[in-house]
């Protein structure tokens, strides 16, 4: 899609203290591999999201370093152990230096 990459994130609204929750993320991005050729036979330059990170209240939870073999519209599903209420912060770093972010609150009882 021509529009700016837009993240979708699924985090439960609530959890019990110490519970391990499932987080799912998806972002629109072509993930141009740098391996494809255009109609004139020229290589289309690589442009991918090369890093994804998830933090909770400033602490790293999960991250992924990506190569061009990751599919278009990158999807991640992973776990997080939540000790307290707080904020998840997600970021995706593009080859061109752009960073796309999203934040989700969770209430822990």
């Amino acid at each position, binding site marked *: 899609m021509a*529009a700016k990459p837009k993240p979708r994130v699924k985090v439960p609204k609530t959890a019990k203290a110490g519970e391990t929750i499932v987080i799912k993320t*998806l972002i629109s991005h072509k993930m141009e591999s740098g391996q494809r050729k255009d109609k004139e036979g020229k290589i289309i330059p690589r442009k991918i999201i090369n890093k994804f990170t998830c933090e909770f209240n400033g602490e790293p939870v999960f991250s992924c370093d990506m190569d061009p073999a990751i599919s*278009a*519209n990158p999807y991640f599903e992973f776990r997080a152990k939540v000790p307290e209420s707080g904020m998840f912060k997600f970021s995706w770093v593009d080859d061109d230096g752009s960073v796309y972010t999203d934040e989700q609150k969770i209430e822990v009882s």
Partner: protein
Amino acid sequence: MKKISLAVAAVATMVSSSVVSAYADPVDDKLVIDGQEMITRAPAPEGHPFKEVLSGWLFREPETRELEADSFQNSGMLYVERGQEIWNTVEGSKGKSCASCHNDAAESMKGISAHYPKWDADAKRPINIELQIDKCRTQNMGAEAYKFDAPEQKALTTFIKYQSLGAPVKLDLKQGEMQSWWDRGKKEYYTRTGQLNLACASCHEASMGKHIRADHLSQGQANGFPTYRLKQADMVSLHNRLRGCIRDTRAEMPKPFSDELMALEVYVTWRGTGLSVETPAVRQ
């Protein structure tokens, strides 16, 4: 001469049916999206060559089926969200968005696209959602029609069709001259094209359930379009897919929204009568 050729055909059929058993039939599985069960099998309408119409979802591998069943994992939902933004964006000389007239699509568009293509009295031909959008844009918004398969066209069409998710496909062939377009579309469906000399029916009727290489041949239903196709990792419109199939017979491709493809869309959509709208479906 005819006798011998029939005998030969019978032998050929016997040989091939012994092979078919090695392959999976359409699965016996239920498609539930966000708690709503989709109709993936429906009794065929009168005059249909099959007894039952089957969603293409039933012909896919478990991983592909799972992608559609989980509305979060389904990448097509990214286009639904993009379509919603476009729905609310003012464009054109009259300072309007889709929402200016139609308000909340979840209410105003609910179930609507299950009845498209429908007769357009102004154009005197059937129109689909893409053409309906263009009609609104040019007549009511003072905006330009979208170019075929523009990302905005695909996203907005996907968004509007998604408002009918689950609604059974049902065309009104009594409107205007819909019936004669249906007749024309039927004729096209059985007409062989290209150097490979294949009709839609060669694969999706005569060979339904069999495999062309790894492709498990479905009934070629239209109820999931625009569909998120893993091959392109993108939304694919119905006319794009129809053109692709025709191209693969090594024929010249008809123009998008041409009379030829609109007639085919009317007929192919009718062949899926009773199936739920699955947009955005996920296919291989």
